C-alpha cells in the first residue's frame, strides 16, 4: 500500500489545469452529498431499517466524485459494489436510491438486487451483479457499441484494486486496448480487498504500470485529491470521446470503515486508519476552496441542510412505498412470462388426457 510519504499533506494540490470555480464548487458539493448520504445509509442499517448489507465508500469521495461527475446522460457508468453513490453524480433521484435500499416496489429493480447494487437504465448506470469486474466487462461491450454506432459517448468503469487480480479484469482492458474503445478503467485502490492488502494482490506499487502491457496510457493519482482525479479524468474522457481509446486510471485512496457493514476491519492498523482520516478529502477541499474565496461555513450549512432535506424526503418516499408482492418473484426472468408454468403444473392421467392443475 502507498505510504504516507508519497503524498503532500495539504490537499488538493493544484491540478494540471486551472478549473472553473463552478466546477470546483460542484466537486465539493457532490463529495459532501455522497458523504452525508452514505453516513445516513449506515445509520439506517444499524437501526435495522433495511436488510442485506452495504459497502460504504466513505473516505473515497474524491475518487467517486472526480471520476463520475459531469458525464453526459448517454455516457455509461459501470459501478462495482462500492460505487452506489456514482448514481448521485449520474442523476438518479435519491427517492429511487432509497426505495432501492429498502427493497421496495418503487426501486428501479422492484426489490430484486441487494442494497448496494443499484442501477438506473434511463441514465445508463448498469445494474450491478456481485461478480468482481463484471460491470466493467459489460461496460467494455457498451463502449464497443458506442464505437460501432459512431456515438460520442464514453464508459467509466470502476473497480477496486483487488479486481485487478481477476482474469476478467485483464480480458476487458486488453480487448478495449486492441479496439481503442471509449472507456476509462478506474482502479479505486483503497489498499484492501476485504481483509487482503494490496501487497498480496500485486507485486507492483502503482497499478497503472499495468497499462504499458496493454498499450494504453496509465496514470496514478492521489485518489483523495478531487482536483487531481477530476483533471486526470477529464483528459482520459476527452481522449476516449475523440477516438483516442482507453485509459487506465489508478486512484489511491482508503475506505474508512469495514469492507461492509458487518466487517469490523480488525485486520488494519488503527494508526493507518487515523492517518487516512486525517487526509479526509472534504475538509481538504474546504481549505482549497477557502483560499479561492469559494467556500464559507454558511454555504456548507445551507448545503448540508438541503441535502438532509432531500434525504429525509427520499426516506419518506421509500418507507411509504409498497413492498413487492411475493409472486412478482416470477416476473422478469424472460421476455415472456413463466407464471403459468410455475404456478400451475398440468397433470396427465389415463382418464383425462389434460387433467387437473396444481402448483
Amino acid at each position: 500500500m502507498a505510504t504516507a510519504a508519497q503524498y503532500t499533506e495539504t490537499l488538493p494540490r493544484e491540478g494540471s489545469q486551472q478549473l472553473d470555480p463552478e466546477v470546483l464548487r460542484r466537486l465539493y458539493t457532490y463529495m459532501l452529498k455522497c458523504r452525508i448520504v452514505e453516513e445516513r445509509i449506515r445509520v439506517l442499517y444499524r437501526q435495522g431499517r433495511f436488510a442485506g448489507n452495504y459497502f460504504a465508500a466513505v473516505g473515497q469521495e474524491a475518487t467517486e466524485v472526480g471520476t463520475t461527475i459531469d458525464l453526459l446522460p448517454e455516457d455509461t457508468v459501470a459501478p462495482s459494489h462500492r460505487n452506489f453513490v456514482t448514481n448521485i453524480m449520474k442523476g438518479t433521484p435519491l427517492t429511487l436510491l432509497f426505495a432501492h435500499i429498502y427493497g421496495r416496489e418503487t426501486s428501479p429493480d422492484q426489490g430484486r438486487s441487494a442494497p448496494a447494487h443499484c442501477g438506473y437504465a434511463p441514465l445508463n448506470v448498469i445494474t450491478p451483479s456481485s461478480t468482481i469486474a463484471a460491470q466493467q466487462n459489460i461496460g467494455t461491450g457498451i463502449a464497443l457499441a458506442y464505437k460501432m454506432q459512431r456515438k460520442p459517448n464514453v464508459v467509466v468503469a470502476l473497480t477496486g484494486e483487488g479486481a485487478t487480480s481477476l482474469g476478467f479484469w485483464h480480458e476487458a482492458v486488453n480487448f478495449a486496448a486492441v479496439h481503442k474503445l471509449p472507456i476509462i478503467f478506474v482502479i479505486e485502490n483503497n489498499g484492501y480487498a476485504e481483509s487482503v492488502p494490496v501487497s498480496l494482490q500485486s507485486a507492483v506499487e502503482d497499478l497503472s504500470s499495468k497499462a504499458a502491457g496493454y498499450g494504453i496510457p496509465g496514470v496514478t493519482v492521489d485518489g483523495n485529491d478531487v482536483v487531481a482525479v477530476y483533471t486526470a479524468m477529464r483528459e482520459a474522457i476527452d481522449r476516449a470521446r475523440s477516438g483516442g481509446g482507453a485509459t487506465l486510471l489508478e486512484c489511491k485512496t482508503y475506505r474508512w470503515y469495514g469492507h461492509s457493514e458487518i466487517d469490523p476491519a480488525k485486520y488494519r492498523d488503527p494508526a493507518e486508519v487515523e492517518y487516512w482520516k486525517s487526509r479526509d478529502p472534504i475538509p481538504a477541499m474546504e481549505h482549497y476552496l477557502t483560499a479561492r474565496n469559494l467556500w464559507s461555513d454558511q454555504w456548507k450549512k445551507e448545503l448540508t441542510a438541503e441535502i438532509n432535506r432531500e434525504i429525509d424526503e427520499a426516506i419518506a418516499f421509500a418507507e411509504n412505498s409498497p413492498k413487492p408482492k411475493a409472486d412478482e418473484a416470477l416476473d422478469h426472468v424472460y421476455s415472456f412470462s413463466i407464471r403459468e408454468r410455475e404456478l400451475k403444473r398440468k397433470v396427465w392421467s389415463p382418464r383425462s388426457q389434460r387433467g387437473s392443475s396444481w402448483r
Partner: protein
Amino acid sequence: MAVMTYIDAINAALHEEMERDPNVFVIGEDVAKMGGAFKATKGLLEKFGNERVIDSPLAEGVIISSSIGAAMAGMRPVPEIQFVDFITPGIDAITQQAAKLRYRSAGTQTCPITVRVCYGGGVGGGLYHSQSNTSWFIHCPGLVVVAPSTPYDAKGLLKAAIRNDDPIMFFEHKKLYRSIKEEVPQEDYTVPLLKAAVRRKGTDLTAISYGYTLQLTLQAAEEVKKKHGAEIEVIDLRTLSPLDTDTFLESVAKTNRAVVVHEDNRTLGIGAEVAAVIAEQAFDCLDAPILRVTAPDVPLLPAAAELEHFCTVSVEKIVTAIERTLDH
C-alpha cells in the same frame, strides 16, 4: 428451396439476419478472416466488414461480456464459442450476467444475445472437443437453450433466436454440420422457440431426444418397427430450456412408455429432467420404467476409437432400451 447441410443453414441464417438488421454482428475466435473453425461465418467478413465481423482475442469471457454490453446498447450480437469445451472462461458472463441482467434490473436492462456454440462428440475429438455441457445452462433460469437437430430447424431457430429478446444459448452439433441435408427455404422463415416437435408418430412408446442422437433415435424407431411392428413416437425437444413439457407429456399419456436419449453424461443430463417431469406429471399414464440411453458418467470422450465408441450412444443401445421398455 435448396438442399442444404446444417452448416449451410446456419451460414444462411447469419447472412440473412445481418442483412435484415444492421445491429446484428458476429464476434468470436476465427470468425472473420477464417470464416469460423467450421465455416459457419463464411463470407460474412467480405460482405459486412470487420466492424460487424470481429475476430476476438482468445478470451471467451470478453466475447460474451462485450456482447452483453453491446446488446444493452442496442446491438444484436451473435457471439460464437468455438467449442463448448472452452465455454468455461465465459460461464460467469453467461450464467451470472446475461442470465440475470433482466431479472436484477426488473426488465429495465436486457441483453438479447445469441451465443452460438459448437458441441457434441463422435468425431474422434477426444476429451476437449466432444463435450455437450448443455446441463450447466439448462439449470440456469434466464437463459433459453436451443439445440436444433435438422438443417431446416437450424436456420429457422437461429433466426428466431436472433430476433428474440432473451439471452440464448444456441447449441450446434458438430457431427450434424455436414452429415445430413434437407430442403431448406431460401426465403425468410422462423421456427418457434420453446416448442418441441413430433418427428415420428407412434402409439407404443415415446422416445425423446435432441441433436445428433435424434437421428439415431429415428433410425432405432424404424428398426423396432421392422423387428417388432411397434410404432415409436419420436420427439425432438429442440428447446432444452425452458422445456416444452406438454408435447412429450401428451405423447406419454397416449403411449404410456418413455425412453430418453442423449449423448451427454447420464447424471443430470437433460434426460433426468424429462424423466422427473414424466414421473411427476404423467405418473398415472406410465406402464413401464423410464429408461435413459446416455453416455456413462466418465469424461467425454476419450480419444481412442474403442473407448470413444464404448461411451457413445448407438442405434443398437437405443433399440435395446426400447425393447426392454416395451417388454415390461
